[in-house]
């Protein structure tokens, strides 16, 4: 007697049915709340949709929204601001995260307590953070500037209220709040670096810097690769932190692309145009990921 193929067995059929039933509730919700919006964002970006209640007025405008963007100074500026934010935020956060993870990985005392202190801002509420910092960094009577004046600084920075300083200040606050996550992931990677590698290098006379640059850095490069991608993506979806800290101001100095999207959609009710800007943001994310993915062969070592 030949054995039946397992796909023809009754137990497999039952298992299949159970499987579909188990994923059914989730799949419906997924299609409705994740799949459908993503699919629609392509379509909406090709229309002149303004109000959800007046769907009969919607016209298909092709790539009109995208060509309009090229001449729209405020959108171009928003893209550049997003880029500046990304260029400041990503290196700063990654370097500080690695630095603190390296220190925590040494034989420091009270390591868990210190890790908690450094991680704590991550779980904090962004609006609460903005309330605190707007008072701490108030140019006239905030604690930071009072302190700077007492040190003899005559014109302390305007922080969140200065056109030049607002973006770097937001970056610093964002880094303070979010760095803990990268740090903890780096710390886990550092704890996985095989001891025999660093120890044998030490016996062979490698100094601390050589051990770091020639052994530790290459070994943790997959983590660096992963973190770089997620940190860049994270830095491009910064609506919440910008809106709560500066609302895109002063002027348009911190109006990043997500802020522009929300304003276009819910301030001037141009949903189609806003969706097109969202597509551009998505294209940036994909582009960066593809570049990283292609480039990883050169510097990422999988053991």
């Amino acid at each position, binding site marked *: 007697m030949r054995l039946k193929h397992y796909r023809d067995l009754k137990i497999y059929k039952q298992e299949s049915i159970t499987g579909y039933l188990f994923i059914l509730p989730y799949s419906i919700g997924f299609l409705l709340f994740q799949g*459908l919006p993503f699919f629609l964002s392509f379509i909406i970006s090709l229309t002149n949709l303004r109000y959800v209640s007046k769907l009969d007025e919607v016209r298909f405008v092709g790539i009109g929204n995208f060509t309009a963007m090229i001449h729209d100074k405020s959108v171009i500026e928003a893209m550049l601001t997003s880029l500046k934010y990304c260029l400041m935020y990503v290196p700063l956060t990654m370097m500080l995260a690695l630095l603190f993870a390296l220190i925590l990985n040494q034989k420091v005392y009270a390591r868990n307590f210190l890790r908690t202190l450094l991680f704590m801002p991550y779980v904090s509420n962004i609006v609460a953070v903005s309330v605190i910092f707007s008072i701490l960094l108030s140019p006239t*009577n905030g604690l930071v500037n009072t302190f700077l004046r007492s040190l003899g600084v005559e014109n302390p920075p305007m922080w969140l209220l200065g056109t030049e300083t607002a973006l770097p200040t937001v970056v610093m606050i964002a880094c303070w709040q979010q760095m803990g996550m990268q740090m903890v992931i780096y710390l886990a990677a550092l704890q996985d670096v095989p001891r025999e590698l660093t120890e044998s290098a030490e016996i062979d006379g490698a100094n601390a810097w050589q051990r770091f640059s020639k052994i530790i850095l290459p070994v943790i490069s997959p983590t660096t690769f992963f973190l770089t991608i997620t940190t860049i993506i994270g830095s491009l979806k910064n609506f919440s932190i910008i809106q709560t800290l500066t609302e895109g101001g002063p002027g348009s100095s911190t109006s990043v692309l997500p802020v522009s999207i929300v304003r276009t959609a819910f301030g001037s009710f141009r949903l189609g145009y806003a969706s097109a800007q969202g597509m551009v943001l998505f294209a940036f994310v994909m582009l960066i990921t593809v570049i990283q993915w292609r480039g990883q062969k050169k510097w990422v070592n999988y053991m």
Partner: protein
Amino acid sequence: MSQDRISYAKKKSSWLIIDKLKENAFNKGLTLLLFVVGAVNIFPFLFMISSSFKPLNQIFEFPFRLIPKDFVLNNYVGLFSPDYYFKRWYANSAIMVLSTIIVKSIVIGPAAYAFSRLRFRGRDKIFLIFLATLMIPGDVTIVPRYVVYKMLGITDTMWSLVLPNAFDVFFVFMLRQFFVSIPFTLTEAAIIDGCNHFKVFYKIILPNAKPAFITMVIFTFIWGWNDYMGPYIFITDTKRQMLTVGIQMFQTGYAENYGLQMAAAALTLVPVILLFLSAQKFFIEGVATSGIKG
């Protein structure tokens, strides 16, 4: 000859001791450095708690006092006065987060079980499609999300926040990875003994996957509680607003009352920080092992 050896050994051991001392001093230095950085790091929180107990004229006082000179409670009392919706926002946020946790646990557990344990046609392809959407940042789809929720009629209700968070892809992935690490022999033995899959999930997988579920609950709580963009876009009715956007109204509406803002900020942070401190083992391990999204 042997004398030489002994002196060499002595010299060597004294070097070792010096090395040890040096290393000790180095580590003490690093610890001290980290304590300073850590203190600076949590200073904003200390400032917040201390200011929330100060009368208005002492908040900007320099040099800063951690312990208020005049200890007052009227900032907190003021928050709960009928002039503000603070209590209501607090309740809204709590109900919203708890509903998210409940719905999420019901839908995600079985899906992750199916992806890790059951064989059916197209399983891995469906899973990959789900995973691919992790690459899409939420800011990109904000407009179509608004359109879809409007059509479903859930804008201005907490469901516009509960449902999208409940169907989050990330935790399907995380739970699946965890379920795969539970020995298959356990579940297969149960099947042979006549358990159906529902029972296997309930009696074997759930008890064994407790850490993963706790991680999911903690993250869901913290992300839901701290979410700003969702309520900002989807909820316009002040009474139905969530805490995060609600307390922002304190900032714009009552600009001069800094003590009140600080008290509101403190009460917003308290549940999350308590949760984090009590469950940080799960939280940090969850981050480290699964590489949570940023």
